């Protein structure tokens, strides 16, 4: 291996995410308008969120509670003393031409979020991603451009201020992420945490969860970071992953061909599956931050903090650990069950009602999940209660019904039929003294098949078992039937 062309430089990507999460409060961060999504343009507005002359912001107390809870869930230190600042820039979607945000004293800092990836064998790989900070701020309005998808080049632009003043937390990660898959998993885990807390719905399509990616590449072993590029406009987790994978490739190719990476903001184009340059960053923008004089500094008391801490639910990572370690579930099942907090709640009620955890996990992640998918339903909308699922599972385990019977009745169970009714008179026949005469009868009625079997066609055993099941309306205990048939045929 002396040829220079075969020595290939290995690169690694350094990735950090800035995530904006809309908090699911009923009213805006500094005023009383509704935060509901999808209302007619400029109907959820008021003098304060419109930045009319003379109005003043008043902090919605729920926003502080939600932000602190999110900070605690991300293992952050909560600031005892925090404040708001004005971030100044002119843009038509920003009613005051400054955004009330937090600059040097954010509400939460120095945290981490554990993500879990599955390797090719389905084994979990865990990694902690550092959280630099979490701060509160107000969202801007929304622009609709006529004749272009940007303000430059459009003939006119319309502004909808319904979103202006919707509360946000901005969560900045450390540059601990190395791949697109890790980034997508980080974003999903963040959403799970927010949903578990009930502080954000994390809906990417409606823009309540928005991720910007900072990414650079460097040869493995090099200490200095490469030039950072920002990517925006990813509307799904898979878009985050694909955008990063594309961008890593683009940057490596550029470096390999001797080009310089420029510091810029790039947009992910879903259509062409690539990133395109949006604007070149010349140094850092000067937002002329200064403390917001209209709002008093925020002080979180120890009592308030411990109150909020005590209200935190079990978080996704904690649940995953518990399901895997205590319930012995596979990493895959655990992920499916904990993805949505209401599914995990369903599962937990089922096992509290006596269901075997593995069996419950199987039912939920397979047959029930398929049904939910097909019907576009949420697990809380189906007729099969978790207690009834536990009932079904127990019937199978105690040999009262077969798995096949349960599956056969599942459509009715899912729409609300109780297991009691579904399986009335359907108990398996597992008494040999009842079953034996039936087996004898079947064998006697099929002399030709018996002869073929005895001549070596042992596959015909299935035929006899099937006949017994048919005769008993599938109530014959399959295992016992098998044994009896085999004994008789060979005997």
């Amino acid at each position, binding site marked *: 291996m002396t040829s220079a062309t075969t020595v290939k430089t290995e690169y690694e990507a350094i990735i950090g995410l800035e995530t904006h999460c809309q908090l699911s409060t009923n009213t805006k961060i500094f005023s009383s308008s509704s935060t509901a999504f999808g209302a007619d343009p400029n109907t959820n507005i008021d*003098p304060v969120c419109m930045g*009319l*002359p*003379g109005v003043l912001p*008043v902090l919605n107390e729920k926003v502080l509670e939600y932000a602190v809870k999110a900070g605690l869930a991300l293992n952050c230190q909560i600031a005892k003393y925090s404040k708001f600042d004005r971030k100044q820039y002119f843009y038509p979607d920003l009613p005051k031409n400054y955004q009330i945000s937090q600059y040097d004293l954010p509400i939460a800092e120095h945290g981490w979020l554990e993500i879990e990836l599955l390797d090719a064998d389905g084994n979990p790989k865990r990694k902690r991603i550092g959280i630099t900070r979490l701060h509160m701020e107000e969202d801007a309005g929304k622009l609709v451009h006529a004749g272009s998808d940007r303000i430059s080049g459009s003939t006119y632009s319309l*502004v909808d201020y319904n979103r202006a003043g919707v509360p946000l937390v901005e969560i900045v990660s450390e540059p601990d992420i190395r791949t697109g898959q890790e980034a997508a998993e980080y974003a999903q885990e963040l959403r799970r945490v927010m949903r578990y807390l009930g502080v954000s719905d994390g809906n990417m399509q409606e823009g309540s969860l928005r991720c910007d990616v900072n990414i650079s590449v460097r040869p493995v072993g090099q200490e200095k970071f490469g030039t950072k590029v920002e990517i925006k406009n990813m509307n799904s987790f898979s878009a985050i992953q694909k955008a990063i994978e594309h961008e890593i490739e683009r940057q490596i190719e550029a470096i390999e061909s001797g080009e310089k990476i420029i510091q810029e903001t790039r947009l992910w184009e879903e259509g062409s599956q690539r990133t395109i340059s949006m604007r070149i960053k010349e140094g850092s923008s000067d937002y002329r931050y200064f403390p917001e*004089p209209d709002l008093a500094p925020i002080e979180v008391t120890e009592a308030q903090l411990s109150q909020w801490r005590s209200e935190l639910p079990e978080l996704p990572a904690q649940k995953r650990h518990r399901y895997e370690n205590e319930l012995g579930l596979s990493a895959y099942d655990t992920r499916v069950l904990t993805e949505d907090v209401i599914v995990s709640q369903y599962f937990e009620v089922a096992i509290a009602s006596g269901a075997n955890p593995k069996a419950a996990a199987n039912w939920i992640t397979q047959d029930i999940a398929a049904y939910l998918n097909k019907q576009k339903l949420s697990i809380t909308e189906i007729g099969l209660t978790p207690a009834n699922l536990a009932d079904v599972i127990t019937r199978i385990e105690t040999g009262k019904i077969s798995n096949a019977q349960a599956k056969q009745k599942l459509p009715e169970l899912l729409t609300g039929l109780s297991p009691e009714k579904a399986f009335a008179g359907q108990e398996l026949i597992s008494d040999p003294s009842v079953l034996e005469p039936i087996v004898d009868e079947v064998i006697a009625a099929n002399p030709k098949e018996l002869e073929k079997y005895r001549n070596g066609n042992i596959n015909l055993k299935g035929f006899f078992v099937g006949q017994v099941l048919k005769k008993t309306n599938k109530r014959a205990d399959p295992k016992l039937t098998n044994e009896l048939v085999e004994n008789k045929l060979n005997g």
Partner: protein
Amino acid sequence: MASIRELHEQLVKKERSAVEITQETLDHIQELEPKLHSFLHITAQQALEQARAVDAKIAAGEEIGLLAGIPIGVKDNMCTKGIPTTCASRILENFVPPYESTVTQKLLDAGAVVVGKTNLDEFAMGSSTENSAYQVTANPWDLSRVPGGSSGGSAAAVAAEECVVALGSDTGGSIRQPASFCGVVGLKPTYGLVSRYGLVAYASSLDQIGPFGKSVEDTAILLKAIAGYDHQDSTSLKVEIPDYVASLKPDLKARSKLRIGIIKETFGEGLDSVVEQAVTKAIEQLQRLGAEVHVISCPNFRYGVPSYYIIAPSEASANLARYDGVKYGWRAPEGDNLLSMYKRTRATGFGAEVKRRIMIGTYALSAGYYDAYYLKAQKVRTLIKQDFENAFKNVDVLVSPTAPTTAFKAGEKTADPISMYLNDLMTIPVNLAGLPGLSVPCGFDEQGLPIGLQLIGKVLREDQLLQIAYAYEQSTSWHLSQPKIS
């Protein structure tokens, strides 16, 4: 014109109706406005409606409050629902607020009759009311002179009896200096005593609404009506409001020895000798009334003006960013893209002084300058606060001239912003410290122009300032003089 109490008696005894009082006031305004230009909008229709409502209450035998049926002026930087609120700026020429500021709502609830919106320096930036985009208000005592500013319209209107009392706002002296120039009483309350909701912001950490009156009692009545916590203003204070009116007494002897501190630094270079003499005499009068006089030093007082002219413009540069032609107010028609629309709108919508302050503030907050300017100014602000705290360890109240001179000629200082800024030398530190300050008439110069005495109190001791001012006023006759408007 009669005092609030006298008018109230007349109304209750049905000697005059609120409509009569209002109509007479409107007629008087009609007569004087061509000379004074105190008002930007006269709200005759709303005023008469409000007066009729008060009369109906009286006719129905209902009890009415002291302010019911009293004609009042409101500085045109307080939002009034359905009534133009321009801040004397082109950029808000057509702006009609869809909501009512807390103070004006309180006035309406009290039955007060708002006769109009008074002139001011554009966005309250100025000391002469000459920075109004619409008109220059004359000083009722000499029409060739300025009424002071920025609440010059309110001060002139009260002095000329175009209304009984008026609201102003004070960021660096904008109530007290015009009160001094126009020979009326003006009070800037403790920061947070009066809600700022609906007051168009100039410098949010300094702005405070306050009353003007011809007498201390009228001023106290109006303060009582507007003071108090407001959940819509996060900087408003949750405090009990004392009865400022009931505690007024004609002398200072009944109380434990009142200690007055003369701020040494306000008597020196730049102070007119006639102002100095009048203020010195006023202090002697306070002594005769029972006060003990000390000389106090506030060594950082002189840094008030420079730090103010960093902090106030910094806040203003952000507060005024919203006037961009996008949502309301003036939009320049020629812009061919967003940036040129912004630029043209702001270039043609704002006056020179406003632009100057926006530029100073933008510069002071810029990266690389923030520490040297804004942060340093905030540190100076803390030092000035400490000076006051130290002074108040030994005295109850501080005194100084309100302004270094009497009213100057219109046009005299417009070319020299620094000499204009120095007009607020005595008043600015009070805003930086968030303290209450009051100006009460204490004499006239040789040309018959009024002189004001400034009293500075401890936090939330408006009651004490009003008591001292009242005792002084009742023992002198300055407040009885009337400008003769020719």
